[in-house]
């Protein structure tokens, strides 16, 4: 949804920590944004009618291990 306090941003929620995020309205699909709450990198999957769908990026570190 377009942010009423700042029309140049959309509001979105971090899928992981539920933080309210402000996404710049010129953001393109597939751009990577970062959650200010948890720092997670998120991919913009779609922007429809001011609604931004964010999805956690799947990454794997070199020392990812059990």
């Amino acid at each position, binding site marked *: 949804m377009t942010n009423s306090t700042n029309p140049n941003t959309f509001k979105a929620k971090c899928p992981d*920590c539920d933080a309210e995020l402000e996404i710049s309205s010129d953001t393109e699909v597939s751009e990577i944004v970062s959650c200010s709450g948890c720092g997670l990198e998120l991919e913009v999957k779609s922007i429809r009618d001011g609604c931004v769908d964010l999805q956690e990026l799947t990454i794997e570190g*070199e020392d990812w291990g*059990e």
Partner: protein
Amino acid sequence: MSIALLYERSENDEAGIKHTAQQLGIDLNFIPFRKIALTISKEGFTAKTKGKDYTDVFNQTVVVLNRAQSKNRRLQASYIMEALGKKTLNTSQVEFTCYSKLRTLLKLWKAGLPVPKTVFVPCDASDFMKNHREIHNENDIADLFQAEIPIDDGIVIKADAGTHGKMIMLSKTREELIDNIKKTKPNIINPIGVVAQELINKWFYDLRIIVYKEKGKQAICHNKALARAGFKDFRTNTFLGNLVFEANLPTNVLDLAVKCGNTLGEGNDAWIFALDAMVNVSDKHVDEAFIKAQLDFAAQEYLPVQKVKAAETRLTDFSAWNTKLEQAFSMYANSSSYQKVKNVIDENIANNRDALVFHEANSCPEFWENTRLVTGLNVAVPLLKTAQSLID
């Protein structure tokens, strides 16, 4: 007074821990460790991301379930949290041991527990002199390995801190051995030296065994193990596409696993491990062609499980996704091919019960998709109960 789940990315295991905590009525704090800046100064400490101050969350936390996926970050997280007065699961001492296959094996060997014959050579495959000239040590290292393990039997080189089968290489000739030593240059999953092991004749499966200890109680080994099976590769990791089966553990194996846990837990009040073990099979009591055929059938039965696993609904509706996963797995586990392979594994473990070796201990095991469904043990339950035992 609370338990915090420290993680880097909330993957299925972490989502499963949250889901289980809700079911058990346990409140969890969340510490997304990856981008929290920890500052220590004469004023004390702060823990902040760019947009949120986690200092209060840290202060309220008594026990930290350390689920950082990076082994190095997990090690740092445990030391940080302990320095801040938190109890950790597992402790930094345990993380330090489990980080390294060699350190784990040394502890088990010292305690008289069965491990594969292992050779460690501290030098690296090559060194650089001050004048940038490269000195090659591969031949010397290969000679040292071959003096201890016949090459015809197979020599397995392992990255000391690797998981998921990464940088585990089998050599059956001198040329392969030299090549594999060359590949084992110092890196983040093999900081120094080269580790080699005898090739265990594990036939077509290995085992993952869960052991845990709550404060004030005796250690427990779950009586069902996760067997990872396949003929595709000498490595049987599920990460490499092998199939999973339930395996019944004989009493002597349960006892050995508890001893491994107590050895690695080193007197800590509480701990949890997934032990990786192989059976040195001398008695292949069933025709391999039969097993291969059943594994092929089972692979077909497993396809719906893989389809659910890959579905992105796990990110949007974990609970609904989990229900579908459990249903798909139940179909697979009830298939005739699954039962036939399981029976072969159970019988083989029973026949070779005194030929088991432990080769790795995982301090932060993945469990939601395989171990839980196969063994019936939701590892999140002992994880959370063990954490609670440190508060009570």
